[in-house]
């Protein structure tokens, strides 16, 4: 086997990536395990009630590095921890904080995939002599000779589908990435883990954002800003109804997400939801559930996967958050704010057949043609 056949497996210490390492190593490939050290889980401990000891089952906790190392030992593969904390903070954590402060709702996992896992990790892999990386993501990628493109597809296990977070992968990245779990269901993966003698076969899945303890992003923002010595920006303002009537006040726009119902601090006979967050005026508009529905959205910084570019209208199903059932829509190239076509390939107008609830700026919109990911972009 040539050295070029070496595969670097991104090992998080969880069942999925551990099983990927086992499958590839047992099939006779030359495998190197890499764990990305992205965030010091004790860094903000004690600030604003952030606990001292992180739970297991989160990226970068010492327990997870320990688990990944034990799997590598068990498989007899070389294993290294690669520190990417600086890049992670710059490309994922800081944008996450800034997006919330600007009244948007970010998707840090996509940023991490775009900037860290499939960019920096691939570079690290290549620098140590591995031309390809493999991850435990549930997705399928395959080369379509007819179109001359790498195609990203939804996995067999729809409940575990992670393609929403992978829309930013370039052709180059897809060409050097393996998703060995794409055809498997989670129970099969656990069964394989047991077959390969992995002690962590029953380890629970991680769900939350790896650097936000307990999923409490407001507490994280406060602790991070305090650590950075930055005062939280003054974004307190008015709560207004859709007709513009002031019905209350709030303590900062970063407390809100479009579609949010709890914690609005106003009494109303009918349930109220956040409809819109205006970062300039600090106004948060609230209204009835029915008013949350929109037919149109614009997405920018679009990455195309199954097509080289969007040249005319295209029928797709569009997914606008992780837990959203993709809905029929028509894509059209959008013109820039100044009417130019300069950013035409970079921005799209999405028109849904049926209005969709809670289109949220900062989230991504990912477009599907059947199982194929056509592309995706960031909702403005």
């Amino acid at each position: 086997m040539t050295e070029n056949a070496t595969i670097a497996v991104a090992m998080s210490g969880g069942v999925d990536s551990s099983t990927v390492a086992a499958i590839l190593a047992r099939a006779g490939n030359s495998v190197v395990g890499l764990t990305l050290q992205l965030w010091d889980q004790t860094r903000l401990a004690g600030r604003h009630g952030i606990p001292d000891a992180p739970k297991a089952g989160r990226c970068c906790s010492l327990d997870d590095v320990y688990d990944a190392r034990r799997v590598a030992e068990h498989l007899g593969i070389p294993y290294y921890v690669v520190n990417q904390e600086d890049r992670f903070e710059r490309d994922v954590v800081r944008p996450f904080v800034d997006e919330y402060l600007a009244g948007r709702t970010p998707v840090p996992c996509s940023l991490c995939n775009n900037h860290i896992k499939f960019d920096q990790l691939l570079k690290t892999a290549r620098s140590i002599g591995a031309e390809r990386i493999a991850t435990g993501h549930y997705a399928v990628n395959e080369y379509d000779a007819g179109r001359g493109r790498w195609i990203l597809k939804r996995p067999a296990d729809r409940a575990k589908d992670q393609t929403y977070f992978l829309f930013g992968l370039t052709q180059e990245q897809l060409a050097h990435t393996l998703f060995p779990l794409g055809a498997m269901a989670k129970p099969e993966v656990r069964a394989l883990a047991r077959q390969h003698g992995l002690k962590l076969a029953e380890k629970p899945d991680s769900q939350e954002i790896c650097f936000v303890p307990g999923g409490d992003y407001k507490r994280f923002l406060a602790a991070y800003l305090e650590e950075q010595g930055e005062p939280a920006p003054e974004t307190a303002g008015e709560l207004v109804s859709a007709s513009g009537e002031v019905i209350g006040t709030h303590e900062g726009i970063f407390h809100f997400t479009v579609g949010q119902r709890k914690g609005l601090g106003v009494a109303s006979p009918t349930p109220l939801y956040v409809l819109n967050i205006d970062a300039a005026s600090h106004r948060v508009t609230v209204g009835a559930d029915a008013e949350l529905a929109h037919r149109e959205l614009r997405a920018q910084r679009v990455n195309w996967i199954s097509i080289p570019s969007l040249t005319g209208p295209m029928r797709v199903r569009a997914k606008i958050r992780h837990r959203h059932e993709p809905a029929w829509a028509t894509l059209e190239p959008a013109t820039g704010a100044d009417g130019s076509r300069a950013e035409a390939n970079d921005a799209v107008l999405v028109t849904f057949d049926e209005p969709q609830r809670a289109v949220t700026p900062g989230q991504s919109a990912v477009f599907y043609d059947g199982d194929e990911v056509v592309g995706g972009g960031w909702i403005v």
Partner: protein
Amino acid sequence: MHRAYMDANATTPLLPEVMEAMRPFWMEDFGNASSIHRQGQRARTAVDRAREALAEFFYCRESEVVFNSGGTEGDNTALFGLVRPGDHLITTAIEHSAVLRAAERLEEHGAEVTFVPPLANGLIDPAAIREAIRPNTRLISVMLANNETGVLQPVEEMGKIAAETGVFFHIDAVQGAGKVAFDVRRFGCQLLSISAHKMHGPKGVGALYVRRGTPLEPLVVGGSHERRQRAGTENVPGIVGLGRAAELAMACLEDGTIARMTGLRDRLEKGILKLSDTGVNGGGAPRVANTTNIRFEQVEGEALVIALDLKGVAVSGGSACHSGSTEPSHVLMAMGLDKNAARASLRFSLLRTATEADVDQVLSVVPEAVEHLRAISPVAAGTAG
């Protein structure tokens, strides 16, 4: 694949003679050195012989040798055992974390600490130590040889300053042991710590030289072992191993081993420096024979360590006690390197048993690996910082 181990400053293997010396003390001569009976006496004799060897090694009295668990314990004992709230401690910015973290803890408990920065070549200027002295200065703690660069500090001059000003002097000599001859009187120190595993002895054992009359409070209390300076049943096999390792280290200082190591290190260094955009950190200062710290501009050191490991060359990006941490080497940063340059630096440290074949192996894989890294993933200025 022949593996070239170039990380002796992290740890060293036992020499066969050390292994042999230790062997009887695991099962046959297993006694507790404090016991009255014959088994105990055999253990006591072995510990006494090792103490004799260490006294010769330090050039001190046998009663001034305290066995312990290694360098970290020795360093911790020196600092915590002498410095009280309100006292002033002088140390340097390039010490091992066993000293730095202890100094920080003393600071938290009300002591004052001065961290003297090094010159650009890694040397601590004795004049800077003298300038840092205050009326309440209790202790000066400086390392003999830096673990990352190998730079040897002018401890004798510092010892004179300490003596003139009536301040205690501790030397962390962990990385100097077996590489330079010790003479604690000439060094002018009251305390000096070493660790067995850095000089082909076993892990988990070390020794602290404590000059007679030094009012050092023990760190570990309990039984009356080690003249009440360090409680706990003696690690007899470990102490025997340390004693034998010390004897062998003394021999190697006189039999041409050091000159041979210097020759190998210099050939390795010269060979690597043929690569463009490389340099030696601390190269302008006196250094121990086995260490060189090389800067590979535009290379991510972490990736190079992994790439070299996969090609059979074991090196490190700095102190093994810091691997996995975010921060680039505090030693190189204190010498004025920026983050990128510090992260682009690797330490090559040779074993006493290193061979020409080891150096050949390094020189056959390093240039290719460095050029590959530079071609694939150039570190753009500022991106890693």
